[in-house]
């Protein structure tokens, strides 16, 4: 169901389990959409809070992604860095409806100038 609040960005089977896809936002921050082993879907701004590494390219395990640049572990749920590291990346509400991935328009467009 596409409404003014939710944007349909494609079928969920386009997301590999334990993987991620990217969603560029024109004039805003690129978003990374992740899928965990059991099929839950999360979205974060695609920038590690440490040195802006593309989190979409990291290894996903449980509900965590490990940044490909310097191995920071980021929670997919809260966007917070885990372990001893401190930092946080914005999360974007995302849900699955009828096999489609829907992303919250408001937060998706938040990074826009």
């Amino acid at each position, binding site marked *: 169901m596409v409404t003014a609040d939710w944007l349909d960005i494609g079928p969920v089977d386009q997301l590999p389990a334990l993987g991620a896809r990217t969603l560029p936002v024109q004039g805003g921050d690129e978003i990374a959409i992740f899928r965990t082993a059991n099929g839950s879907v999360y979205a974060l701004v695609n920038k590690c809070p440490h040195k802006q590494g593309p989190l979409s390219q990291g290894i996903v395990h449980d509900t965590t992604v490990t940044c490909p640049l310097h191995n920071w572990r980021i929670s997919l749920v809260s966007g917070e860095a885990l372990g001893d590291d401190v930092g946080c990346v914005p999360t974007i509400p995302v849900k699955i409806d009828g096999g489609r991935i829907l992303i919250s328009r408001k937060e*998706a467009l938040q990074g826009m100038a």
Partner: protein
Amino acid sequence: MIASPPDQKPHLVVIGNGMAGCRAVEEILARETGKFRITIFGAEPRVNYNRIMLSPVLAGEKSFEDIIINGPEWYTENGIALISGDPVVGIDRAAKIVTAKSGKTVSYNKLLIATGSDPFIIPVPGKDLPGVVTFRDLDDVDKMLAAAGLGGNAVVIGGGLLGLEAAHGLALRGMQVTVLHLMPTLMERQLDEAAGWLLKSELERRGQKILTGADTAEIIGMKKVEAVRLKDGTEIPADIVVMAVGIRPSTRLAKEAGLAVGRGIQVDDHMVTSDADVLAVGECVEHQGQVYGLVAPLWEMCRSLADGLTGTKNPYTGSVTSTKLKVSGIDVFSAGDFSGGDGCEDIVLRDATRGIYKRVIVKDDKILGAVLYGDTADGNWYFDLLKKGEDISDIRDALIFGQAFASGGGATANPIDAVAALPDDAEICGCNGVSKGKVMACIAGGAHTLDAVRSTCKASASCGSCTGLVENLLQFALGDEFAGERDAKPMCKCTSFTHEDVRAAILEKSLKEIPAVMQALSWSTPDGCSSCRPALNYYLLCAWPAEHKEDPQSRFVNERMHANIQKDGTYSVVPRMWGGVTTPNELRAIADAADKYGARMVKVTGGQRLDLFGIKKEDLPSIWADLNAAGMVSGHAYGKALRTVKTCVGSEWCRFGTQDSTGLGILLEQMTWGSWMPHKFKIAVSGCPRNCAEATIKDFGVICVDSGYELLVGGNGGIHLRGTDLLCKVATEEEALEYCGAFIQLYREEARYLDRTAPWIERVGLDYVKAKVVEDEEGRKALYGRFLHAQKHLQKDPWAERAAGKEAHLHQHIAEIRPFAVVGAN
């Protein structure tokens, strides 16, 4: 409004003679007999039966008579008029009349819609061919039984609960069954990866063929089904095709009658629809945004409905569901939420010998979800704790061992006290037959670490599933003295096993997939971590070169993308230049590619090749295609793999050159390219001891001398500079190639993942390497043979595969948001 005649009771008409409709009527009758005159319409020409037991009927474990809930006498005794085999086709809410297919009309005072759900048919060509059936009612079962009577091949599309039960039934009836499942894991909505893998292995062991990631393109056949074709071109012969991909609430009647319908018919907490005189219950309804496809919520809905209709408030508040798979001999249980998240903790128990996997998800001292495979005895206990939201902090340590253990009272709830209470002859290690008494004696004899116990009495030295028990015994015997220290470091926090243990187990137990290793070695996490997954992927690849199936999600980014990620998220691309030799044509192609894809820098690397910087991930497949077209392949400059073979010009040009170092370098690179290693691997060949190719800081170096070739190993630049050790001297190029291949294979088979050759040689000693590669001729030839065998499977240019479209999703955005428009969603 049609008022009921004063002498007559209000008329309740029920559309649907299934489990929900009849249960609702039972609940109403239980509260107040005689409040309503009742008529039930059923689409099927039979009495009310238990639909969820159709699987055992298909499997031949039960007959239709066994699964009847209410026989004809129930209808007569309760004065219910049953109109079966005549489905309702229209509802006139203004006139309060329903019309059946036969034309019959019946007026109502209260209407209850319990139409259940319809099987979802995937819209592929051939879906309407005879021989394509769904799995919803007894007619479907009869069709499947008729087909099974003829034997042959059955294809079940859908590896969820329903599909697997259908597959099980058809297999028991003697058909060759193939299950096609779109997702990578069977029953992914109920099971995690680990449990899904165990289930898949067991079904395969029973002779079913399970294809995951299988996307159906077409059902083929002239007059009836003959085969199913997948999007990847695979064709599977089929005499019958069962569509079991899912169900959808059956809402057509309600929608046409103008009732509020979302995903299902929208109802309030007492199952009343947007029309106060129309109720709905079961799988066809949507309550607070939720639709249910399982039976338990239906009982709860029916209670609220009946209470509401008979004037008692009892709002339905939604259901937490649990699932059990009805396949005899396979115990699977799943309940609640197992997606994890912040503050969630997994408690995992694996018992490889008994094929058991248990995972309980806990947050804030409450159970959020549970996934059980192999032993589901405690499923209902966990489910009960979950539904009640009970605080489990007191029994937490013993929770995973189940109710009997955890609820045994204060003493046994503590695992240390529990092992203390075991008798001396209780078996601790099943693999090696070691009793508690023996372990205790061994600890008393001075074995104060897990490794010491393993080496002295062999407890937990094989499959390792009793590691926890042995550690508890150590703790019991030594108290605070036991700190859990290990001589050898475990591979990562997910396991107590070392790299060497894991590699040995992979070979010994023929483990060929990552979930298989995790199960056999009792991994403590459901899907590993970013440290063990790439290591396991490599160990499997090295152990089983011919069979290994790559797991891209277990590769570090550079190896997944076949390019080097840079700090700005762009990539650098390095084509292979054999022995550092190039041609004007190659240089032109590289220059063209640099222009065409906007490389912001072209850099000569230390390994005698060219590096194009600033390439976008979307452009990678096309730049590779361009470079392939000029005859170049991936340089693997990004991999834990053979990188480059650096050479000097050698005897062909240089006045000091003693041998053709360039030619030997090219031969070495042609032999070794494409090989995955524990870490990056560099080779160099210098034509004389002046060593212009810097062969003395490479993993494998050759220094040419007049009489032959000095072979050097274990050097690297980097943070800890290490010069090579001399391995030996050989006379011919052939020998140089053989020793090189054998050395690489020894390193591939024995070094830990992410060990370069330098620390590996420091650990095992140069003498060990010499003994294996130089002194043992037979061993050397065997190593070399295994290396060449692996290379047969590894020497595929990954760029050509990607340029041809493999893993295209890795290079494309899923969609793009432009302000107020979404582009590219497909």
